[in-house]
């Protein structure tokens, strides 16, 4: 994660696995990736939403965030690894780094999330 220039704005990739859940009208009516949250993260990286767990989250606070600040978030997929699950099947671990920069260009908060996608 040393190469900050490697960060890129992630674009929504649609809902590749929404499947029958959306077809019956019970799913959200717009892509989760456009709404934010961890569900949005999962959808952004093209994971199967119904099989994704939030494994870990960590925040490093560098510069305090105050009222009136404007934060810009940049996200990137930092790592993707696979390992065998305890009950068989493959688990895919996706590490997503998010850097929040304030209006003065200072790094304010660095966040790391780990998403776990279970194989169906």
């Amino acid at each position, binding site marked *: 994660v040393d190469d900050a220039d490697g960060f890129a704005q992630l674009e929504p990739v649609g809902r590749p696995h929404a499947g029958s*859940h959306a077809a019956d009208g019970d799913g959200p009516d717009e892509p*989760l990736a456009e*709404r934010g949250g961890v569900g949005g993260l999962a959808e952004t990286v093209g994971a199967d939403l119904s099989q994704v767990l939030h494994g870990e*989250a960590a925040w490093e606070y560098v510069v305090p965030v105050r009222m009136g600040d404007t934060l810009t978030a940049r996200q990137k997929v930092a790592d993707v690894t696979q390992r065998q699950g305890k009950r068989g099947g493959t688990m895919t671990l996706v590490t997503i780094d998010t850097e929040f920069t304030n209006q003065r260009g200072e790094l304010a908060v660095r966040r790391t999330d780990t998403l776990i996608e279970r194989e169906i």
Partner: protein
Amino acid sequence: MTGLTTTDLPTVPVGLAEGDEMPLTTAGPMTRTDFVRYAGASGDFHPLHHDEIYARDAGLPCVFAMGLLHAGILGDQLARWVGPDNIRRFAVRFTGQVWPGDELTFTGRVERVEDGDGVRLAHLVLTVTRQTGDPAITATATAQIG
């Protein structure tokens, strides 16, 4: 879990020592309404957290809480204890799901104190535990205490 005001919060480093414990707090019983309120607050509209039919289709008994909901409550307690500006790092590991009806207990303890660079840091371990004794979150944090 409500009523956190800025006047409650320490503004200068709190002198903690190894073994000191965060005031014990509880939350719950957690409700589906709590999950929906947090969906609106956070923007996390993953249907597993609000859509019972979707959750059952995914093989679950019912909807369950976003981990960041109780992680956020834990973060509130941490901020009350050490002061928000003194938190350097906060890391949570989700070890089990939180279901409607769950009653949660929040704990924290100073594991180690470290001096360096003119500041004193406390390394903390924190937990969120269900009424069953199962941990929902194990967490670590680093706070400036001097």
